[in-house]
């Protein structure tokens, strides 16, 4: 085996449309990698960099092998395009048959013996004389694989190699790759975790946007290598599995049945309207004459430093602040202080915060935690109905936590607890979802998980999101309205 490959803060541009930014990565010859991540995050681009593609704008890349075996949709498309060009280039008005498969495979073949075996195993023997461009997609894919495998490569890059292969071919290919593990380092781009072969030693996780420690996202047209996970690290591995599940499966926010449905709100009225809202303790004024209206489907970000009254303003809305009775507050059709109960208010709000997580110290099951969102309670004081359990189970499925439905909530990891509390907040499909620093205290992976879930929610429901953060400059995509509070002197 050859040298280590190393990328140091490498930024690589592809066609000006897409950039991989500041990639730090190294591959030693004994490792086999899987590159995975969300759609459009640059997985294929990263693999292509190893094959020498793209333009390095900053940083360094060293140790790239000379002979790379590459199979990818892009390379496949390129080959087919070349073949079609041959046809276009014909000026003789004679239909070109194009290059036959035999030539595609055996011209410049480093290991014709292996190629012959593979042709047979892939069932291409009868097609050898057919024109390459006449083959089906699956057949051209097989030709590509045979070319790469029989080229005696120093590095084998297989981008979604299992896509479009029939069951037999898939098994054959997997078995063949197994025979290569001690001779050729491999990098596989795979979207689905369950396709990961056993020999993979490391996982590189890509994301299209960078999420920094404060939970805000960066630009949307760049790819990043956000996480590198050693397969030996079981915890990280399981979390990544969950993250991919969230990112790559087609998720629908579970519906709510009639028995648990909220009353309809008048769509012409604002969700929230604070007029001259003031919070004061003794002579200290925390919030001074704040006017704020939140219309339906108007996503807001509320920011401000500690002590600027963010939590106070939120609790005026949720009804948790005793001074909501001395202010002019209209929420969800109620002018506060006219005989409504806080439960009539809270039913319209999904709420997630770190302090909620601290308060939620109950040994109840994960399923019950989700169901408790239908009651706005911490824990359950009555038994969940079958239909409520069903909705909760759909959420657990969505979170990739189906296996933990009956586990006690307080035994979950911190990040999983946060995910579950978001599901709890969303289970009733509230008109307003308040996320009070939802990523606070979470590590990279869990931040990714939480944001992936929030993204799903923003995209897939009619819930208005109120995102609360320390810093005004930390922005989340999809939010167009901002309110910044300043600390009173």
């Amino acid at each position, binding site marked *: 085996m050859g040298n280590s490959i190393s990328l140091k803060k490498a930024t690589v541009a592809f066609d000006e449309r897409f950039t991989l930014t500041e990639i730090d990565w190294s591959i030693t010859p004994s490792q086999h990698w899987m590159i995975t991540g969300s759609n459009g995050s640059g997985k294929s681009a990263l693999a292509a960099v190893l094959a020498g593609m793209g333009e390095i704008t900053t940083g360094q890349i060293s140790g790239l092998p000379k002979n790379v075996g590459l199979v990818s949709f892009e390379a496949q498309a390129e080959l087919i395009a070349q073949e079609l060009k041959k046809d276009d280039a014909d000026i003789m008005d004679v239909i070109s048959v194009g290059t036959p498969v035999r030539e595609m495979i055996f011209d410049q073949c480093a290991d014709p013996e292996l190629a012959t075996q593979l042709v047979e195993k892939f069932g291409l023997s009868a097609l050898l004389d057919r024109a390459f461009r006449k083959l089906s997609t699956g057949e051209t894919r097989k030709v590509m694989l045979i070319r790469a495998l029989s080229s005696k490569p120093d590095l084998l890059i297989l981008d979604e190699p299992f896509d479009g292969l029939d069951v037999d071919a898939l098994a054959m290919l997997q078995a063949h790759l197994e025979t290569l593990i001690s001779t050729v380092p491999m990098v596989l781009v795979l979207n689905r975790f369950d396709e990961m072969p056993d020999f993979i030693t490391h996982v590189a996780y890509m994301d299209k946007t960078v999420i920094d420690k404060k939970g805000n996202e960066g630009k949307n047209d760049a790819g990043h290598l956000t996480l590198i996970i050693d397969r030996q690290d079981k915890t990280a591995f399981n979390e990544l599995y969950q993250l991919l599940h969230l990112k790559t499966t087609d998720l629908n926010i579970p519906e709510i049945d009639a028995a648990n449905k909220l009353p309809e709100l008048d769509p012409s009225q604002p969700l929230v309207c604070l007029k001259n809202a003031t919070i004061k*303790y003794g002579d200290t004024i925390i919030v001074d004459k704040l006017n704020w209206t939140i219309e339906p489907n108007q996503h807001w970000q509320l920011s401000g430093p500690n002590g600027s009254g963010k939590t106070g303003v939120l609790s005026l809305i949720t009804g948790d602040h005793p001074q909501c*009775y001395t202010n002019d507050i209209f929420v969800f059709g109620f002018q506060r202080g006219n*005989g409504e*109960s*806080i439960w009539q208010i809270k039913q319209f709000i999904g709420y997630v915060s770190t302090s909620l997580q601290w308060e939620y110290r109950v040994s109840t099951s994960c399923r019950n935690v989700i169901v408790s969102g239908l009651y706005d309670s911490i824990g359950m004081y*009555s038994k969940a109905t079958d239909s409520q359990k069903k909705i909760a189970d759909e959420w657990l499925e969505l979170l990739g936590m189906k296996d933990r439905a009956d586990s006690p909530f307080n035994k979950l990891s911190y990040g999983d607890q946060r995910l579950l509390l978001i599901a709890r907040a969303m289970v009733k499909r509230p008109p307003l979802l308040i996320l009070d620093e939802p990523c606070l205290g979470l590590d990279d992976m869990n931040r990714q998980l939480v944001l992936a879930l929030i993204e799903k929610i923003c995209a897939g429901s009619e819930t208005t999101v109120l995102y609360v953060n320390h810093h005004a400059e930390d922005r989340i995509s999809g939010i167009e309205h901002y309110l910044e509070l300043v600390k009173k002197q």
Partner: protein
Amino acid sequence: MSNNYFNTLPLREQLAQLAKCRFMDISEFPEGVDALKGKKIVVIGCGAQGLNQGLNLRDSGLDVSYTLRAAAIAEKRQSWKNATENGFVVGTYDELIPTADVVLNLTPDKQHTPVVKEIMPLMKKGACLSYSHGFNIVEEGMQIREDLTVIMVAPKCPGSEVRAEYVRGFGVPTLIAVHEDNDPKGEGLALAKAYAVGTGGHKAGVLMSSFIAEVKSDLMGEQTILCGMLQTGSILCFDKMVEEGIDAGYASRLIQYGWETVTEALKYGGVTNMLDRLSNPAKIKAFDLSEELKVIMRPLYNKHQDDIISGHFSKTMMEDWANDDVNLLGWRAETAETNFEKTPAGDVEISEQEFFDNGILMVAMVKAGVELAFETMTAAGIIAESAYYESLHETPLIANTIARKKLYEMNATISDTAEYGCYLYNHACLPLLADFMKDIKTDVIGKGLSTDDNGVDNARLIEVNEALRSHPVEAIGSVLRGHMADMKKIV
């Protein structure tokens, strides 16, 4: 001096009132807070119960304001701050009482007579006066204007918990009662139920009782097992351990946190579960000790119950009130001087199980106290439900106050009435147990049984288990805890 109301009733009526207590199902509250909707609720007093109940009632959509003495408002005392900072309207008795449809008297027992005398003439015709303890009506014989409805709503937890449980969507077990002599419009029960719903109590379980059953059982529980037994037990166990050479810091910690730990097991699964936490030999030991303790202490429990029923207890206590609390304050100072109180808990780690293993005598004392209080109350005509709540159910709450700040915190948290009774119990119980304590060694308090042999006689173990499980407090306990099965998970 006032007339004891209970003593004016014929025996038949006394027994009927004592036997009142029924656990109400949540399905019995379909009207929610309707009976109080649109009514003006004025709370007298803004301490922990007053403020937190008011916050809950307001959050349930009710109209709540606070009335304080003119001086408390003028001087901006803590009660005034509590109410105004939470956005409540605050006014003097003269300003607010005449506007009130319902007046909640949440002042300390001792102030009831002067407060009620002052507000009664100001109250609207046909309004409702609510108490959270029946002492004023039952023991002091306060006569309430005939046109007024008199009810009681008593959450069975400290004020802070009343609020915390409401905020998380629950409530705390609550006792309600109607004073039948003052229910001119027959709306007392509806108002009491609505009030219980307004504080969230209906979700945790409401006990419908009577003023008399509440007072007579509450007094009995608090002065015997709840406060008295824990105080006496703390003093005796500590002194014994130190006498036997156990490190005073360790002894102090074992007791300060031990009551809380062992009664936590009691809360979840009754006396049976508390003893099941011990090894078999230790369980048999604890059982034997508690049987012995029950024989020694039974006359004392009987005396307390007799004095409570006859009114002797309240009479002597009210004499002390009239005498500027000379006894109470003297005894309070005495408690501060006990060795247990003066020895801070040592910086040693004690595991949860070790509190049981090394505190066999404490377990025995709790068992003896709970069972004696329950047996004595039910023998006096108090129904098992009431007796359960006023003995076993509340013991962990009091134990928790000791864990916070020893006996000082316990006596500061409980009412003056409970504190007074606690000292009476302690003074009588200490000498009563003197001989018993002579035979006590560190195997049952401080060190635990030697673990050489964990063997026990089968027949004896079966006998002990059977006796534990068949006690009447266990039978009613399993029923009531079953009602609160979901609560159990979170409290």
